[in-house]
Structures are given as C-alpha cells and as structure tokens.
C-alpha cells in the first residue's frame, strides 16, 4: 500500500472518531427513548461556543469539556421538560418540534454572539504533529480526538452497564411497561438519559471546536452525520456507533481521496440505503419482524 493510502486510512480513523464523538450522545437518547433530537447539531454548537467563551476567559479545551457537558446537559433538561416530555409517544412529531428548537437556538446564539466566526485554539500541549507514516504529519489533536472518542464510548458503557442507573436504563429499554410496574420512574429515566446524551453533545462541541471555526451553523453537518451513523450502525448495542462511524468515516475519506468529497458522500449514502435493506434497524439494531 502506498504511503498516501495509509495516510488516508489514518485520516479516516480520526474522521471516525469525530463521527463517534458527535453521534454517541444521540445514540444513547435514541436507543433508550426512541426519539431523535433534531437540535443535536445545535447542542454541539452550544458546546463549541461554551468552549470559545472558556477560551476567551483563559481556559483551554480540557477545562471546556466538563463545562460544556454541564451547560448542554442543562440545556437538554430544559428542552426535555419543556418540549419532548409531552411527545415521547410520537417520535415523528419530536423531529419537528426539536427542529424548531434548533432554529431557536441558532437565532439566540447569533443574537448573543453575532455572526462572526470564532476561533478556538487547541491546547498548546496538543499542538504539533507526529510522523506516523513516512514524512506525512499526523496532528496530535487528531490522536487526541481518537482518545476522546474511545473514552466517551467507555464512559457510556460504564454508565449503562456498571451502574444502578444504567441497570434501570437497560430495563426501560427492554420493557418499558414492565419496568414502570416494577417501580422504575420511566419518565425520570428518560429525562436523565436525555440530559446525559445532551451533555455528550456538549463535550463533542468542546472537542470539535478547534477543528474548524465556531459558528452558529456549524452543527447541522455534524447532526446529519450522526443520524447516518446511527441509522447504519444501529442503537441496540454500543458497538453500533463505532461500527457505523467507522464504515462512514473510512468510506467517505477513502472515496473522497479517490474522487471528491461530494461523490464520497453520495456513494456512502447509497451504501447506507442498501445496507439498511439487510439491517433495517442498523447493523447492531434490535431484530425487527421478518
């Protein structure tokens, strides 16, 4: 294999990391509550702006991560209590309502921060790059993203599979009615999971902010990528997000290298549409009829 190809594959790994980071919050919410938050992109954006503010106040990305988590988690709480809690049984309506929330968030953020782009720098510790393959540099920040992605998945895994709260979440996911009968406050579980997922989106924003500039419209692209990752990978299992992210990330990177990025996206999209014929609920989705 040529060096260029290996280099592309490695870039694909970091693209996968970005997809995983963006999608994991959404996957958790969708997997448990069955709702898709169309404002997910805007949640990421708010996390990024939080990081920008932290940056202006002298902090760096490491400080921004927990702060963004909390800020967006609280935002998620507000949205869940105000809007989503009334329409859990109507997932299609949730799409529309959260789309509205997204619009409002964009407008509000634009009113607060203005239309200019913000630049958030990576922490000095992570500046520079390493030479993984020959003379082609691989930025430390990309490695950092991969680490963050792994940590986020691990943390989610720990929460869902090693805590009491996670046990309740799994019970609700398996059999909502029965869990309710057994005394689990399913409404509260939904709320907390939504907060957690939103918080993850906040972290995504904080961590993705240094990649490009921060603007009020930056989130939409990440959101659509997250949706596609979930559709392909499935939400029945935590492996769905890395798998979906990996296939899309590597696929788009390599195809973009061969043709161009738009063709890459188109081909990956077609691949996804065909793949879900075999896996209607994603590769790791719950089994559906027939």
């Amino acid at each position, binding site marked *: 294999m040529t060096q260029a190809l290996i280099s592309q594959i490695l870039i694909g790994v970091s693209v996968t990391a970005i997809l995983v980071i963006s999608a994991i919050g959404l996957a958790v919410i*969708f997997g448990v509550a*069955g709702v*898709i938050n169309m404002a997910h992109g805007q949640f990421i954006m708010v996390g990024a702006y939080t990081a920008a503010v932290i940056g202006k106040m002298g902090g760096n990305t490491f400080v921004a991560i927990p702060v963004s988590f909390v800020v967006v988690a609280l935002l998620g709480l507000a949205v869940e209590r105000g*809007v989503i809690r*009334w*329409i859990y049984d109507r*997932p*299609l*309506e*949730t*799409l*529309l*309502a959260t*789309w*509205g*929330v*997204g*619009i*409002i968030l*964009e*407008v*509000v953020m*634009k*009113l607060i921060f203005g239309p200019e782009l913000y630049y958030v720098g990576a922490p000095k510790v992570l500046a520079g790059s390493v030479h993984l393959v020959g003379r082609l540099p691989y930025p430390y920040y990309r490695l950092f993203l991969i680490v963050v992605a792994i940590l986020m998945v691990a943390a989610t895994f720990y929460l869902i599979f090693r805590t009491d709260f996670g046990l309740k979440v799994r019970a609700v996911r398996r059999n909502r009615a029965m869990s309710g009968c057994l005394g689990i406050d399913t409404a509260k579980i939904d709320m907390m999971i939504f907060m957690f997922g939103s918080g993850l989106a906040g972290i995504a924003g904080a961590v993705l902010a240094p990649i490009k500039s921060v603007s009020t419209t930056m989130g939409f692209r990440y959101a*659509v990528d997250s*949706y*596609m990752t*979930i*559709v392909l990978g499935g939400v029945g299992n935590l492996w769905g997000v890395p798998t979906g992210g990996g296939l899309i990330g590597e696929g788009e990177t390599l195809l973009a290298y061969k043709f*161009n*990025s*738009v063709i890459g*996206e*188109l081909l990956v*999209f077609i691949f*996804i*549409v*065909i793949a*879900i*014929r075999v896996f*209607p*609920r994603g590769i790791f989705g719950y089994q*559906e*009829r*027939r």
Partner: protein
Amino acid sequence: MSAAAERLSRSRRSRATLQRGRLVPLWMLLLGAAVVAVIGGFPVVAGTDSYILLLLGKFLCYAIFALSIDLIWGFTGILSLGQAVYFGIGAYFVALSLKINYALDHPTRYGNKFPDFMEWNGLKALPHFMEPLVSTPFAVACALIVPTALAFIFGVITFKRHIYGVYCAVITLAESLILQEFIIEYQAYTGGFNGITDYSNYLGIPFLWFMLAVTIAFFLIARVLTHSRIGTVLKSIRDNDLRAQFMGYNVANYRIFVFCVSAFMSAAAGAMYAAWVGIISYLDTGPVFSVEGVIWTAVGGRATLIGPFLGAFLVKGLEFLLSGVLAAFWQLLVGLLFIFVVLVMPDGIVGSIAHWLRRHRKGTLTQLREEQDLLAHDREHDWQPAGVPRSGEESV
C-alpha cells in the same frame, strides 16, 4: 324483526352515502371558486403589479408542494424531510432548458451561445449530455419523469423493507442535503451557489392561469384519491401498518404508489416555479425548504388537503409581512411555530376547525345513537338481535 328494526335498517341504507359525504361538498366548491376568482382575477383588476403577481404564482407552487407532502405525510404517515429533492430536480431541468435557450439568443460577452455560468467555470461549450435540454418540452418531460422515477426507486429500496418512521425521515434529510451539496459542487453544470438566473421566464397573467388550472387539477386528483377507498386504506396504513399488512394490504406497494404521486406533484410544482420565478438555486432543493413544506402542512392541517394551501399562504404571507422587520425575529417565530404546532395544535388550523364542527353538529352519529337507543329499548322488552344471547344466559 320488529318495526323499529325495520325502520332502522332502511334508514341506515340511505345514511350510508351520507357517511362518505359528497366528492366535492358545496362549501368546498364555493371556497375553491372564491380562491380561484381572487387569484385569477386580482392581477387583471389590479394591473400587473409585478411583485404581487410574482407572489401569487409562487404561492400556487408552494401550495402544490405542500399538498404533495400532505398526501404522503398527512394521509399515509410517511414523514419525508427531502421532498424538495423532487421539487428541485423538476425546477433545475426546466431552468437549465430555459437558460440554454436564452443563451442561444443572447450570446455572452465573448460571443458564446451557452449559459454564462458555464463560461465562468471554464467550460468551452455546452456539455453534450445537456444538449437535449434545448428542447423545452423534452426538459419538461424530464422534469416530471426523472423525479418520479427516483421516488419509485427510493420507495422500492426503503418501503419494501419496511423502513419508515424516523429512519425514513432521517434518510430523506440526508438525501436532500447531498443533492444540495452536489448542486453546489458541480457549479459548472448547475450554477452552484448563485443558481441559475437571468433567463426569460413566463411571468404573466396567461401563465398564472395555467398554473391555477394545474393547481386545481392536482387538488381534484388528490381529493378523488383520498375520498375513495384507497384514501381510507392509506389512512389505515398510517394508523396501524401492522394491522393493515395482516389484513392483506401490501403496505409497501401502497406507500410506493403514493410516494410517486407526491413526487410527481412536487416535480411539477418545481418545474412551474422555475419557469415562473426566473431564479432557481440549491436552496430550493435542500432540507430547509423540505421542512418548510412540512410545517405549512402541519400548520394548515394534515390530511385535510385544504390545510396545506392555508398553511403555505399563512406562513409565507407572514414571512412576507415581517421580512422588513428583523430577520432574526422571524426565524425565532418560525422555531416557535414548529413547537407550537406539534404541542398545542397537532391537527392544524383546518383540522381543529373540522374537529370542533364534528362535535357540535347533530349528524349521522347522533341520529344513529338515538336509533340504537330505540333498539336497546326494544331488546330489553322482548326483542333480540340475531345471534347474540343476553348476558347471563348459558350458551352451548
């Protein structure tokens, strides 16, 4: 059978047709006639004030677009966030054709007889595959057939595997976004960000009347479709596709059918739009426009056919009125509108009115109830309907 029962069954038969209602109720006819008169007559009376004329034509295209969304979403329960794909493809075919023809008569500064945006992007001549678009009738045919074929393929791929609901919504969203990006990327062929502009358009009263005729035709088609049995089948698929499937309906085929009809309508709307407005861009193919269509239908009232018209008119009208004010304010309002319509008024305006009317009207329901009470009274005293024993009796 007692006399009451005889009376009952006879009157029922005559009520049966009342249950279905007439194809075009009088009020609908009158309302439609009024709207047609206003739209068709206004420019004649008020003179061709270009801007209002432009808006009227645009409104018709938007209304058809929203109508097509009502068919698949309101009646059949398919939420597609990418209907603008079909609108956009229809629009681009027609716009390209008109632009190409315009360029033939109006050479560029360098004497080239092909679209200026192609020249700016370094093309030396009209691409071969675009040459057939010189024929506008051919372009119109493409504008109608290609999106419908695309919808058919999409339908077969997704609906045959029972992919619907949230998954379908998200996939159509991505589809719309990708088309948008495609158009921007291949700007040599599509005009990219600027879109296709500066070509002769059909803005004028005759074309307005043509669009009005097309709108009426589509409305009637939608009405006939949804009023007939197939309309009830579509609604049953929307309400409980599991039950429908186990009741013998090939749910996938019905979905594909209505999806293609909807795409055809969207494409026609797009084609007319391109001819009417004279400008087309990637914005007309993307997720934002798709979702706009959905919200018009939601505000107006799903599964009502008139709702989409009302919704498009109200929302677009409001946007026009408020466009002078802070644009941000309007956006905020739009966002709140989404939330409001979903939480507070899921039936939309027309739907809520219909609900209210049904509750307050003494109709078939009340009359039948009264007759059923009569029946119950008879039964208590000695008469028994066939087959079902009274409670307490032991059945063999």
